[in-house]
């Protein structure tokens, strides 16, 4: 039973769900200040390429390469962040969309990134954890599970821990002075400024945090799939990340996570419909804006269920 449940296919889907949930957090953080940045796929690709190249060319261990990839995204985010965040609303969305496109074209043409062919043979997390596990004496599997299954589970666990840490961090951030500042800027930037909040600083901070998490998610996904190419980080990727937040709701951090979970699982359950995935995504975006512009989970939903459940338990 457990053996059939842990087949590579399910495990792979689980990994994608977790990666997408991490990406959901990344877009949530920039949206928390009310800034729509569509550059997440760009930051993701910077993280993915730096991490992949660092491990392949310099032989850096994966656990160092992935955070370094995240830092590379931060560096770029700092450079473009200061001028970009002077723009607001639509201008920022288009400028960041353009940024993603420029990054893609650069990766498509650099020699070191192997152009349109992309980079293959990236050290895989599965194999690495497998090596660690067999060094621990689990080489022949454990409890009826093969080594591959155990290492896949271990990777899944690692991703889950990263997600939980990020979630914890984001939740704590929300209740802190920084989180309050983000919310104030989102509600009314001018008023926030009048209250003495350094809006530029907090907007840049949110932007950088989002870029870091996107970069880390990119690094993780590169080491999960062994292969990355410029096509993995195009306009569609941006839309895909963005739709997690729109569908789930971007007011609470649970929104993008729920969005990532549902929208990654949906095409897998509807195998027949997977050809129509993009069509369904499009229809979802339009329908959400018309009927539930705040997404599935908003503060009101939480309040509604809280009072409803509270009443029931007191009866």
């Amino acid at each position, binding site marked *: 039973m457990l053996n059939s449940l842990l087949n590579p296919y399910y495990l792979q889907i689980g990994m994608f769900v977790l990666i997408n949930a991490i990406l959901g957090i990344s877009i949530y953080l920039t949206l928390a200040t009310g800034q729509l940045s569509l550059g997440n796929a760009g930051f993701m690709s910077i993280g993915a390429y730096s991490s992949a190249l660092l491990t392949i060319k310099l032989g850096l261990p994966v656990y160092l390469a992935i955070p370094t990839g995240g830092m590379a995204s931060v560096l770029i985010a700092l450079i473009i962040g200061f001028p970009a965040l002077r723009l607001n609303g639509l201008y920022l969305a288009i400028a960041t969309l353009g940024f993603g496109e420029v990054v893609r074209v650069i990766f498509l043409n650099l020699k070191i990134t192997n152009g349109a062919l992309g980079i293959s043979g990236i050290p895989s997390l599965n194999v690495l954890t497998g090596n660690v596990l067999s060094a621990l004496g689990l080489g022949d599997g454990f409890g009826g599970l093969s080594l591959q299954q155990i290492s896949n589970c271990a990777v899944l666990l690692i991703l889950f821990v990263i997600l939980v840490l990020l979630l914890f961090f984001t939740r704590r951030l929300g209740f802190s002075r920084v989180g309050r500042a983000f919310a104030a800027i989102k509600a009314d930037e001018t008023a926030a400024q009048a209250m003495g909040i350094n809006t530029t600083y907090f907007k840049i901070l949110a932007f950088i945090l989002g870029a870091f998490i996107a970069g880390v998610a990119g690094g993780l996904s590169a080491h999960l799939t062994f292969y990355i190419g410029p096509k993995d980080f195009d*306009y569609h990727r941006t839309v895909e990340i963005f739709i997690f937040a729109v569908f789930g709701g971007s007011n609470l951090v649970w929104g993008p996570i729920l969005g990532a979970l549902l929208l990654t699982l949906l095409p897998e359950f509807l195998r027949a419909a997977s050809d129509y995935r993009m069509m369904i*995504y499009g229809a979802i975006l339009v329908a959400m804006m018309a009927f539930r512009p705040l997404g599935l989970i908003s503060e009101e939903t939480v309040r509604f269920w809280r009072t409803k459940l509270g009443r029931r338990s007191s009866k």
Partner: protein
Amino acid sequence: MFWQQLVNGLTLGSTYSLIALGYTLIMGVLNIVNMAHGEIFMFGAFVGLLLVTHLKVNIFVAMLGAALTGAILGIILERVALRPLRRKAVSHLAPLISTIGVSIFLESVALKLFGPQSRDFPSSFTAAFEFGPMRISLVQIFILAVSFSLMLVLRFWLAKTKIGKALRATAENIETANLLGVNTNKIIVLTVSLASALGSVAGVLVGLSFNAVEPTMGITMGLKGLAVLILGGMGNITGAMLGGLILGIAEVFSVAYGNSSYRDAVAFGMIIVILFIRPQGLFGSRDQQGGK
């Protein structure tokens, strides 16, 4: 060489201008960026292509057909994605999101209907003329003539006719226009379908000049149109026309004198720089919004 590249740049740029005009009209009147414009453009290109190859009609009829398809798509877009949002007080990003939805929907529909491969127009305009050092093909002349005359007609129509004035009034201030007896709902539908029709015609022209029509062309060209929208200043019609020409010339020259593989980065490199120096665009003034 220089003059030849200039002509090539103008030809390319005039199609960009046509695409950007669609964005600008909608931006001016509704104050939103229509992200589905690129896909309507792509549908226009396909309809034009199918009309020419299957029904063997002449190219003007094909463009008319494309324009009609574009207008119909525009009306549907307005009904489905824009009108429901106008009634409610939603964030100003909502229309952006719902038009992104329409755009990915249309793109995947096109992938299903037409397949991912690139198709080409039957070559009926291969003739070319020599003007001193330049060699201008019939296709180029055709593109220049069509796009410039469309732009001129549009300018005249906006400036002089009653509907054009109503459109500009709506762009200036939708409530006041409404009070003054302009049927703003009709004007909005008209604007969206007009913009989409222009985009579709541009699709046919681009299909002719690159000799390639494929479902993904909407994204690339749509993004270029967005770049022009920013370059010329949002909602500025003259800006869109000139911005398109500037972008076309810049691209062609970057290919001729620089590295051709970075061609697609030129547009966005340019707008990123422009946005940082002059966020209102090359031809926009800070408070300018209207379709003037």
